[in-house]
């Protein structure tokens, strides 16, 4: 008798069913009754068609593009922290967050941009909140990008350190990408042939990685050195022309990255059926693969590090439930290529639900591991270990080192490809911010790239990655809340129902500001307790310096570097305060704009209850 409840199978099926209800029920209802999407309305793609930025594109192509643009490391690593509170709350947030908020933001951002003639969030923010609001957004985005970069550089360095086979494999993929770029653009070789050559080189790179593992000999200094190497690669990616480096590398990286997710989902669906008997052959492990992690819910982190389930869980799992980054993608490029308005739901909403499945696959990879993997929350190898557990039964001919290198490489390329784009984007935003004035030297492409990598490198080698991740999640989710408020303002102005976006928007803003406050408190309290010489309350070591050492990573988390750690804690307090103030100020402007928009719309509303016309 197969015990479905003990394996992840049931949760995969339940999530898919609930996402189906969300898409075909709630989302379709919102599309019809709130936004009233109309296939006959001319979209910006037709209105301003130029064949470059504005052109109508098939919804299937756009769905693929949108999904690829939004799916990165977020849905993979968020559940690693989220599972701290038990896998059940993490799963509920992945389902409910996406059901009520996540898709609504992605789809709403796209529709808002379509209804605003394809304009992106900068001009829309300017229209709704004025010049100061847009400047505020710019400042927020700059800090947001620094925090993303810090988190991703820290993770890439940790992955190279944890999986010795992955460095050679990563370099192999990059070189293969550069070669493919040359073949494609310089020698005009057919794209299918280039893809074949590139994929063969990717396979060779993985085997070379297994054959020639690279481990640095400097112990606790390894991660800072890896982070420095990562920064050099990112510098090249940011300043070189995209067809030379980023484009072909990202193209090649796409194949292993998505193959890994499909393999994990297949593995999760097969968990209750092991061992499988075909004739006289028996395949797979001797027993079904069961869930090992506790379901929870734990209202606070049992390890005493992260804090309460609210607001931490809601910022720890960002992408997969809701992510502000998606609103930038939806409004900056996809909206300009939407063929008809009714495509916004499958493209924006559909891609977000698909990303929820990616987060689910990752959560399942963690669920099948024993709790000891999560002690101290430093074991970044956990996802890889879970992926190997799920997939090795049906990929029996591939050895554990090959699979470990493969899944480790997947983690790295997810982070590296997005981070290359983030570094480039930072360079462009810096160029815009400091184009004039005393600091115009910072707008130089080399200077801004170096700044955009040096500051995150400093954070990456000093702060524990989970602390950075929570700041990243807080900033990212806050951006999502702000995006939902922009959507709500537009709906208020057009006299459409606003409660379906106002409530999620307010929830996200309050939650993320609370999370940022909590993080500020965590770092600030450590500083205060240490300076007050207060003994650390738990563990055998009552030394007051533990207050500040717990928030930093090796090599700084030893007593000899207590003053350095103190400085880092203080800097993190400052970063948190800046993010909080920028976010709060933006939120206040948006709420004020919402209220005035509502009042204006009511003043214009017809006296008779005939509803009036809602969209111009």
């Amino acid at each position: 008798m197969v015990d479905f409840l003990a394996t992840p199978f049931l949760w995969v099926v339940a999530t898919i069913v609930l996402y189906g209800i969300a898409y075909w029920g709630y989302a379709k209802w919102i599309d019809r009754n709130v936004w009233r999407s109309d296939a006959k309305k001319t979209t910006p793609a037709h209105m301003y068609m130029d064949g470059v930025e504005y052109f109508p594109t098939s919804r299937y192509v756009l769905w693929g593009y949108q999904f690829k643009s939004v799916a990165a490391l977020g849905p993979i690593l968020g559940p690693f922290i989220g599972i701290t509170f038990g896998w059940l709350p993490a799963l509920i947030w992945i389902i409910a967050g996406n059901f009520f908020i996540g898709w609504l933001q992605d789809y709403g951002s796209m529709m808002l941009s379509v209804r605003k003639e394809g304009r992106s969030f900068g001009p829309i923010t300017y229209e709704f909140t004025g010049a100061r609001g847009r400047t505020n957004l710019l400042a927020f985005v700059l800090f947001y990008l620094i925090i993303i970069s810090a988190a991703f550089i820290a993770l890439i360095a940790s992955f190279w350190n944890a999986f010795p086979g992955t460095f050679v494999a990563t370099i192999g993929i990059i070189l293969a990408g550069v070669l493919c770029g040359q073949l494609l653009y310089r020698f005009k070789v057919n794209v299918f042939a280039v893809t074949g050559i590139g994929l063969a080189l990717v396979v060779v790179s993985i085997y070379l990685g297994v054959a020639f593992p690279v481990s640095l000999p400097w112990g606790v200094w390894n991660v800072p050195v890896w982070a420095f190497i990562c920064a050099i690669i990112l510098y090249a990616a940011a300043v070189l022309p995209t067809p030379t480096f980023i484009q072909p590398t990202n193209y090649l990286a796409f194949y292993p990255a998505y193959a890994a997710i499909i393999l994990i989902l297949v593995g999760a669906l097969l968990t209750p059926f092991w061992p499988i008997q075909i004739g006289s052959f028996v395949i797979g492990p001797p027993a079904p693969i069961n869930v090992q992690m506790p379901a929870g819910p734990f209202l606070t982190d049992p390890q005493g590090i992260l804090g309460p389930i609210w607001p931490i869980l809601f910022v720890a799992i960002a992408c997969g439930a809701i992510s502000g980054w998606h609103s930038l993608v939806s409004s900056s490029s996809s909206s300009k290529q939407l063929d008809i308005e009714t495509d916004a739901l499958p493209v924006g909403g559909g891609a977000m639900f698909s990303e929820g499945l990616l987060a689910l696959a990752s959560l399942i990879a963690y669920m099948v591991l024993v709790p000891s993997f999560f002690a101290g929350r430093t074991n970044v190898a956990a996802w890889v270990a879970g992926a190997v557990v799920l997939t090795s039964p049906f990929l029996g001919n591939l050895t554990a080192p090959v699979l470990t290198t493969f899944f480790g490489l997947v983690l790295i390329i997810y982070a590296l490809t997005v981070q290359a784009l983030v570094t480039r984007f930072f360079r462009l935003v810096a160029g815009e911010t400091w184009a004039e004035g005393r600091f115009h030297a910072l707008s130089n492409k080399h200077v801004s790239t170096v700044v955009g990598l040096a500051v995150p490198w400093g954070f990456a080698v000093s702060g524990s990655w989970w602390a950075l991740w929570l700041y990243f999640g807080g900033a990212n989710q806050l951006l999502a809340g702000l995006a939902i408020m922009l959507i709500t303002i537009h709906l208020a102005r057009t006299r459409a129902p606003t409660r379906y976006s106002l409530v999620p928007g307010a929830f996200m803003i309050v939650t993320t500001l609370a999370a940022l406050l909590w993080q500020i408190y965590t770092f600030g309290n450590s500083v205060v307790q240490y300076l007050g010489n207060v003994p650390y309350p738990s563990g055998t070591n009552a030394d007051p310096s533990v207050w500040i050492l717990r928030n930093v990573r090796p090599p700084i988390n030893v007593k000899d570097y207590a003053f350095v750690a103190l400085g880092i804690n203080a800097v993190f307090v400052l970063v948190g305060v800046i993010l909080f103030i920028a976010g709060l100020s933006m939120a206040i402007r948006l709420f004020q704009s919402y209220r005035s928009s509502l009042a204006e719309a009511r003043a214009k509303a017809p006296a008779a209850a005939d509803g009036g016309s809602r969209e111009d």
Partner: protein
Amino acid sequence: MRQLGDSKGPPHPKSRGRKVRDAAKGVLYGMAAHGHVTAALRTRMYLEHLFMFITLGDMLGVPVIPPYYSLKILPYAVPNIKSWKQRVFRERDFTDQVF
């Protein structure tokens, strides 16, 4: 004018299998290559802006090359003037540069 991966195909009805195959191809193309294709188009657009600025700078009061050569090139540049104007006058923002 139909463009990349346009959804409206030829008027004859497609079989279900053909539709599924086209959708799968579209998804794969969108995931793997669409972003790169649009990035390449954008790069070409900026190069074209530069070319038009150099050849037709006179129109903007910026004589980059002598008018004699501008006039010689004019017939070749004329078909692109409309879309050039459209793109150059378009409002742009840092949030347009994400992807």
